[in-house]
């Protein structure tokens, strides 16, 4: 579903992402963890086609994000770490705009808007301007918009930040449903407990390099994800990717 091959992104003289390769298969929830500034957001932005990269190639469901960006973007949905939405629109206007872009029919969009916004408890607020929304409400609206066109791949940067426990639970269920119908989820998080419980696979990035990836068992063994992560962070020498871990 998502194939990242030798991705390299350089800012000035600093390699933000260094020769990173990842392969996410349909049905997988793939967690992406790493310290602040490790290169998670850069990788996610490059994968969804909003950041140019220097080397490598990224394929979404077989479509190159460089060569066929529009077709590739039809397959995916992206949610940034901070949901900066159009403050001059109301919630319903924003959802309608996104539905128009994906060409979702009138009946289908009406049904999906109701389904997702009701599950997050923001349906009654849709007539209000987004500028009046709290951070959590904006996040819920952005998630509803992202799910509307049934994307095959959903990439999210810290999706649980700002969500209340009920909304977090709803989002986790929605993520699992995407995978159950053959889609895939790739998301970054600092909440290791969530990653451990939710993810089928995990990738750890440090200073732009992928230092560990695989199934949860492969990455953690008998330890907890937190223990492994802290060990990897402390171990300066372990910056090389373990061959064979990356599928």
């Amino acid at each position, binding site marked *: 579903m998502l194939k990242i091959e030798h991705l390299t992104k350089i800012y000035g003289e600093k390699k933000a992402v260094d020769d990173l390769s990842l392969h996410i298969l349909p049905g997988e929830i793939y967690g992406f963890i790493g310290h602040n500034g490790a290169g998670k957001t850069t990788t996610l932005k490059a994968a969804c*086609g909003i950041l140019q990269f220097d080397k490598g190639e990224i394929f979404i469901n077989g479509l190159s994000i460089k060569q066929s960006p529009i077709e590739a973007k039809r397959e*995916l949905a992206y949610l940034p770490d*901070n949901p900066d*939405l159009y403050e001059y629109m109301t919630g319903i206007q924003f959802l309608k*705009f996104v539905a128009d*872009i994906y060409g979702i029919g009138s009946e289908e969009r009406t049904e999906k808007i109701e389904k997702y916004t009701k599950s997050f408890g923001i349906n009654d607020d849709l007539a209000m301007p987004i500028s009046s929304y709290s951070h959590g409400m904006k996040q819920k609206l952005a998630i509803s918009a992202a799910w509307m066109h049934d994307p095959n791949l959903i990439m999210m940067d810290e999706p649980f930040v700002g969500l209340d426990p009920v909304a977090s639970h709803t989002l986790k269920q929605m993520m699992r449903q995407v995978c159950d119908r053959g889609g895939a989820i790739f998301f970054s998080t600092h909440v290791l407990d969530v990653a451990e419980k939710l993810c089928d696979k995990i990738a750890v990035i440090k200073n732009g390099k992928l230092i560990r990836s695989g199934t949860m068992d492969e990455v953690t063994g008998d330890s907890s994800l937190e223990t492994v992560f802290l060990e990897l962070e402390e171990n300066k020498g372990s910056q090389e990717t373990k061959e064979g871990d990356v599928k």
Partner: protein
Amino acid sequence: MSAAAKALIKKQLLQTLNSFSRKNRKTGKKLSIAGVIGIYLLIIVSFGSMFFTYSMIVCEGLHNAGLDWMYFALFGIFGGLFSVVGSAFMTYSALYNAKDNELLLSMPLSPSLILFSRMIGCYFMAFTFCMPVLLPSLIVYIAHGYATAPVIIFSLLNLFFLPLISLAISCVLGWLIALIAPRVKNKSIVTLVVSLAFIAGYYAFVIRLPHMLEDFVVNAEGFSKKIKYLAIPFYLMGKGLAGDTPSFLLYSLIAVLLFGIVYYVLSRSFIKLTTSSAPSVKVEYSGGQVKSESLKSSLLKREFMKFKSSATYMLNTAMGSFFMLVGGVAILIKGSDIKEYFINIAEDIFSDSSLIVLMSVGITWIIVSYNFITAASVSLEGKSIWIIQSLPVKPSDALNAKLILHIVITGIPALILYVCSAIAFSADIRLLLGIPAVILWVIFNAVLGLILNLKNPNLDYIDETAAIKNNWSVLILMFGGTAVVVGLGLLYVLVSKFLSAELYIIAVSVLVLAAVLTLFKWLYTRGAVIFSYLN
């Protein structure tokens, strides 16, 4: 002064200075201090020249009538008004709407100290607005040879006292705005209407001012009585600046006291006003069928929604449309008078239909250059640019929506102005020649503005005004457009012996068309790539 107070004042002054200069995205360099001073001097000179002319009109007459004090009082009133009008909204934003109010209030700082530091920044702005009025009036007075040492000393001191009075008035107005603003619905439309009414009033006042000043000199005795009783501080200021030391001392005391009283009163309500939020009325979503629309129409609607949501956007980037509409209607109503006036000046030009067409095109082109909607439209995507970038939207479609907004908002008023002026000056069928020229110029400006903004966007703005005003694209379009028209006018003078006005319009239109096609080619290739990856 405590360390906290020093730190706060330093932060405020830096903030004020930073609003003049933004970092270049590519070089990371900021406008130098010399650059800031250069812009500051340019503002003072451009406004100062206007008040210089007004000073010249009244100086000698009032001096000969023995009313020197009224000369200074008059320009004191002008300076105060100019400063209040120019800085009232800024004072409101700086005092009550600053983004860091909550952060500062959470620190161990007294609200009155926060207010004081903000007022120092506002004082700097008030000072900036008073300068272009007070300095020219003093220079004119000295140039006439009327000035004595006390006049010069008191006038220079007044550069610092008058801003205290205007700041006090601006603060009270800002306080009123802070009280009313949260209760106003459709804020952007209300602001637009109030601002347009104010601008119309301002221009009506400026146009009539020279005549008013002449009347003022003739009826100086009558006006002097009114000022004495109705504007005592300005009467004392006038007397003081004319050399009367006790009057100046009393005036200075009043200025300081007025500022002190306003500061004391505002510091009492500062926390309440800065932390109060609008009483929001919740509108519940009623559901129902959500209709679908085409991608292109939805993108265009998005641009219009953004445009009409912001009075700052409308006022700063589309003022030309307002002038073109008002101008078109005025020309139709007063057409015969205007035509007669111009025929008296240059009968050869204003009796020749093809020259009228040429001039109407030129005038329309200049005003069209004062609209720069596209030149701010990329910057105004701001931090939400990720939405359009991550959606399956061709960059060319997103950019076209911005162009169409500009072309519609500018093109319709431009055609109205052009046709009205050509008809009022009795142009014949040849007026049709100018229509493609006007449309092409509107498109040229739209595409050029968009390209300039793509090359130099400001997506990280905190205040929308900075994304719109603090923008080189805007300056290039405004001054570049006027320069092109003046250049083409001069070129016509040179080639008019060999080329008729009709052929000249056609030739220039073809050139603009070629430029438009070249710009479009860049926009849809390189420009589209830039837009896709802006961050």
